[in-house]
C-alpha cells in the first residue's frame, strides 16, 4: 500500500459522521460539522492540486482482488476535482436545508451522509469497479428517504426508482465486466489508467456490445429518454436534501462515467451509434421538455426539467470533440448546482405552504422576497442566461456539436449543397429546448411568485438562517464560475482523453 491519499478522508468523513449519528450524536449538528469539514478538506486538496500536471494526482492504491485486478485506488484529475467540488458543496447545502423530521432524525441524516459518501467515493475512484460500487451506496438510503419521509405517492415512487436503478446498475455491471474482458489477457485490470493505457496502445478491440451495455446502464441511471420515467416522480416525492443530492450529484455519475470510460476506450462505437443516441437525446430535450411544460406542480416540473437537461450533456458527449466534451463537463457542474438550488427552494416552499400546486400558489414573492429572488436566479441559471456557468457550458456544447459530423453545407465536390447532418439537427433541437425551458421556468416563476397574493400565504416566513446561507453560497458559486469559466476549462482540458 502506497501512501494514503487525502481523498480517503473525503470519503471517510461522511461515513464516520453517519456512524456517529447512528450511535447517538446530535444528528443535525454532527452532519453539518461533517459536511463543513469535508468542504475544508476539499479546499485543502484543491490547493495542493497541480492543474498543469496531466493524469491522476493524490493516487493511493490498495489491492482488493488481485486475481481480477481490482484494487481500491483513489485519485483525482481536473474533471473529478470538479465533480468532487460539486459533491461536497451540495452535501453541505443539503444538510443545511434538511429539516429534522419529527421522528427518526438519525436515520434521515445518516442516509443523507451515506449518499454523500457514495458520490464522493465514486468521483474519487480511479478503479472502475469501486467507481461503480460507491455509486450503489446510495441505493438503500434513497429507498428509505423517499419511502419514509417522501411526499405524494412516495411508495410507488420509491419502488419504481429502486427497481429501475438496480436493473440499470446490473446492466452497467455487465458493461464494466465486458470492458474488463476486452482488455488484452495479461494486462487486464479494472484500473482506469491501465484500461486507458491498453486502449492507447491499440490493444483493446472496440466492442459495440460493451458500449451499448454501458450506454443503457448509464442511460438508466442518468434518465436517458425511454428509461427516464422513474426520475421525475422520485425527485418530486423525495425530501429536498435527497433530491438535491440525487438529481444534482448522483445522476451526473452516468455522464461522468461515459466521458471517463467510453471516450478514451470505445471511441469508434460512440461515433458508430451516434445516430441512436442523437435521436434519444433529442427526445429527452423536446419530448420531456414539452412534458415539463404540461406539469401543474412545481416538484414534478423540476423533476422533468432535470431529466430534460440531461439531453444537453448527452449532446456534448456524443458530439465527441474538445469543445463539446468541455461543455458537457461544465454542464455537469452547472446543472448540479442549479437543480440543487431549485430543489432546495422547492422544499422550502413545501415546508411553508404544504402544497406545490400552481393553482393554489401565487404572489408569494411579496411576503418572501429573498426566496423569490433566489428562485429567479436559479431559474435563469437553469435556462442558461449569460453570467451563469450554465451559459458557458451550453455555448461550448452547441459550438462543438454543430461542428461535429460530416459537413453538409457549402460546396461539396464542386456542387453547392445545403443541409444538416444529425449532429446539427440535434443541436437545433437543443437550441429550441432553451426556449422550452424558458417557457416553463418563467411560467413557474409567474404562477408561484407573481400575481395576486392569497390570504392563506400572507404570513409566510422568508428564507433565513442556515438554508438561506447555503442557497446564497450555491448561487454565488454559479455566478463566480459564470464569470470565470476558464478556470474550469483549464481543469477539464487535460482530463479529456480524446483519442
Amino acid at each position, binding site marked *: 500500500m502506497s501512501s494514503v491519499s487525502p481523498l480517503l478522508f473525503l470519503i471517510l468523513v461522511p461515513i464516520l459522521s453517519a456512524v456517529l449519528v447512528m450511535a447517538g450524536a446530535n444528528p443535525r449538528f454532527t452532519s453539518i460539522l461533517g459536511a463543513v469539514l469535508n468542504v475544508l478538506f476539499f479546499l485543502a486538496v484543491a490547493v495542493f492540486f497541480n492543474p498543469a500536471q496531466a493524469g491522476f494526482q493524490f493516487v493511493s492504491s490498495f*489491492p*482488493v*482482488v*488481485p*486475481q*481480477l485486478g481490482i484494487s*481500491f485506488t483513489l485519485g483525482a484529475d481536473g474533471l473529478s476535482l470538479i465533480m468532487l467540488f460539486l459533491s461536497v458543496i451540495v452535501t453541505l447545502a443539503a444538510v443545511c436545508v434538511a429539516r429534522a423530521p419529527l*421522528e*427518526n432524525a438519525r*436515520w434521515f441524516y445518516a442516509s443523507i451522509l451515506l449518499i454523500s459518501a457514495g458520490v464522493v467515493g465514486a468521483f474519487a475512484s480511479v478503479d472502475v469497479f469501486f467507481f*461503480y*460500487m*460507491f455509486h*450503489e*451506496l446510495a*441505493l*438503500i438510503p434513497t*429507498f*428509505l428517504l423517499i*419511502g*419514509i419521509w417522501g411526499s405524494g405517492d412516495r*411508495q410507488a415512487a420509491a*419502488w419504481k426508482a*429502486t*427497481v429501475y436503478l*438496480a*436493473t440499470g446498475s*446490473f*446492466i452497467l*455491471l*455487465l458493461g464494466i*465486466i*465486458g470492458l*474488463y*474482458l476486452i482488455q488484452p489477457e495479461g494486462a487486464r485490470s479494472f484500473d482506469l489508467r491501465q484500461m486507458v493505457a491498453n486502449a492507447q496502445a491499440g490493444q483493446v478491440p472496440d466492442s459495440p456490445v460493451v458500449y451499448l451495455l454501458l450506454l443503457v446502464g448509464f442511460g438508466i441511471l442518468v434518465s436517458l429518454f425511454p428509461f427516464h420515467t422513474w426520475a421525475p416522480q422520485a425527485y418530486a416525492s423525495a425530501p429536498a436534501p435527497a433530491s438535491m443530492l440525487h438529481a444534482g450529484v448522483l445522476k451526473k455519475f452516468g455522464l461522468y462515467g461515459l466521458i471517463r470510460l467510453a471516450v478514451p476506450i470505445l471511441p469508434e462505437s460512440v461515433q458508430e451509434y451516434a445516430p441512436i443516441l442523437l435521436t434519444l437525446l433529442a427526445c429527452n430535450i423536446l419530448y420531456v421538455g414539452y412534458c415539463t411544460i404540461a406539469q401543474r406542480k412545481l416538484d414534478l416540473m423540476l423533476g422533468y426539467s432535470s431529466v430534460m437537461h440531461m439531453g444537453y450533456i448527452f449532446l456534448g458527449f456524443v458530439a465527441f470533440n474538445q469543445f463539446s466534451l468541455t461543455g458537457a463537463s461544465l454542464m455537469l457542474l452547472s446543472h448540479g448546482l442549479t437543480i440543487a438550488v431549485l430543489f432546495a427552494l422547492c422544499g422550502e416552499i413545501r415546508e411553508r405552504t404544504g402544497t406545490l400546486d400552481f393553482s393554489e400558489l401565487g404572489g408569494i414573492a411579496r411576503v418572501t422576497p429573498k426566496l423569490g429572488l433566489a428562485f429567479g436566479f436559479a431559474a435563469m441559471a437553469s435556462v442558461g442566461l449569460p453570467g451563469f456557468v450554465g451559459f458557458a457550458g451550453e455555448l461550448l456544447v452547441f459550438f462543438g456539436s454543430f461542428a461535429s459530423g460530416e459537413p453538409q453545407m457549402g460546396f461539396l465536390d464542386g456542387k453547392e449543397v445545403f443541409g444538416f447532418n444529425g449532429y446539427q439537427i440535434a443541436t437545433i433541437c437543443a437550441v429550441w429546448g432553451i426556449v422550452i425551458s424558458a417557457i416553463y421556468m418563467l411560467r413557474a416563476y409567474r404562477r408561484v411568485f407573481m400575481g395576486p397574493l392569497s390570504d392563506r400565504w400572507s404570513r409566510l416566513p422568508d428564507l433565513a438562517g442556515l438554508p438561506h446561507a447555503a442557497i446564497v453560497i450555491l448561487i454565488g458559486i454559479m455566478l463566480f464560475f459564470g464569470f470565470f469559466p476558464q478556470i474550469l476549462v483549464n481543469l477539464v482540458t487535460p482530463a479529456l482523453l480524446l483519442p
Partner: protein
Amino acid sequence: MIPPVALEICVVCLGIFLLMAESFSFKSNKVTLAHGAIFGLVCVFILSFFIETNPVAMQDSGFYVVDGLSLFFKRFALLATILTLILAIDYLPIVQRLVPAERPEAGSGEFFILPVFTCAGLMWMASAADFIMIFCALELVTISLYIQVAYTRRSLASLEAGTKFLVLGALSTGFFIYGITWIFGMTGETNLAVIQKNLSIVPEANHTAILFGLAMVLVAIGFKIAAAPFQFWVPDVYQGAPTPITAFLAVASKAAGFLILIRVLQPFFVLESFQAKLILVLLLLAALTLIYGNLAAIPQTNFKRLLGYSSIAHAGYLLVGLAAIGDAFAGRAVVFYLSGYFLMTFLAFLVMVPVTKATGGDDLSHFNGLARRSPGLALAMLIAAASLAGVPFTVGFFGKFFVFEAAMNQELYLLVLIGVITVASGFYYYFKVIRAMYWQPAPEGCGAVAVSPLSKLAIGLCTLLILVLGFYPQLLIRFLP
C-alpha cells in the same frame, strides 16, 4: 497431528455422548445440552486446523479424500451446525409448545442432538470420493433431517413438511441409486477417480448409458440443491419446518448438494463429448432455476417462504457459476458465493427467530415497524436483505459479481442476461422486508424484541463479516481451495 477421519468420529461421539447425557441425567434444563453441543463442535472446528492434510494411509483407499475443498466444507458444516444450534436455543419455547409431552422440557433434547449427527454426515460427504460413500453420507444427512423437519408434531404445517420431504427425499434417493447402478454397469466402478480412468476405455456405444445414469444422479442432486424443475418441495418444507431447521436445510444441505455436484461432475468433464452436454444441462437448469425462483418469490407474503424461494434463486446463481466452470476463477466463485450465502441466510434467520418469538408469526407483516422497536435488529436484517439482493459493499454483491464475471468470460451471454433480469426482481422482493421494517408503523404496544446474548454475538459477527467481505473479499478468497 490427527488423522482427518478423527473429525467425523469426534462429532459422532459427541452426538452419542449427548444422547446418553440426556437419557441419564435428571437435569431438566435442555439448553445445557445445546451449550455442550456447541462447545464440542467448536472444539472440533479448532481441531480441524491441526490435522494431517495429506495422510499416506488415506491416499490408496480412494473413497475418502482430504483436500482443500473437503476441509473447507467440513468447517462450513461445523459452523452451520453451530449457528443452527444457536438458533435452536432461541426457538426452544416454540418447540416445547408444539411437542406433546408430560413435562414441557421433555422431548426437546433431541432437537439439539440430531443436528450434530447431520453435521457428521455433512462432513463425511465433504470427503466422499466414491458413489457408495456419497450415498451413505447423504442418507445420514437426509434421514436425520426428516426427523428434524417434522419435529414440532403439533404443528400441522411441520407434519406436512415432514411428509413431503420424506416422500420426495425417498424418491430422489431412488433416482440416485438407479443412476449409480447404470454408471457402475458401464464403467465397472463406483469410485470417482477410477471412473475417470475407465471412461476413456469405455466404448463409444456405451456413452449414452453412462449419460443416462448421470442424468438420474443429476436429478437426485437437483432435489438436494433445489434446482428447478426439482424445486417444488422447497416452499412448503421451508415454511413448515422449525425455523432453525429451515436455516440448516437452506444452507448446509444445499452446500452439500453443490459439493457433491462438483465432485460427481469432475470425472465426467474429462471427456469432451460429455462436457458439452453436461454444460448444456447445467445451463438449462440454471436458467430455469433463476427464472422460477425469482419470479415465484415476488408475490410471497410469508418471510420464511420467501427465503425458500430465495434459496431456489440462489441455487440458480450458483449453477451459473458451475456452468462457467471452464473459467479459472469459476470454482472459487461458486465456493465464495456459497460462503456469502451462508452468512446472509443465517443472518436473516438469526434476526427472524427472535422476531417470530416476539410477534407470534413469520409473515412479512410481522416485521412491521421493527426499525422503531429494535433498530439494531432491523439494521442487521437490512444488511442481510441488501446482501441477498446483491447491493455493493456486501458479500452478496461480490458473489454475484464473481459468478457473472466467470460466465461472461465463458461467453454465456444469454444466461447472464437472464441473471440480470432476475436480480432486478430480487431487489423487489428482498426490499419488501426493508419496507416492512422501515416504512410501516409498529403495531401498538410493542416494546423492543428480546435477543439472547449468544444470538447477539452471532448476529454481530455475521453482519460484520458480510460488510468486511463486501469490501475486502480477498480475506476469504485466500482460504478458498
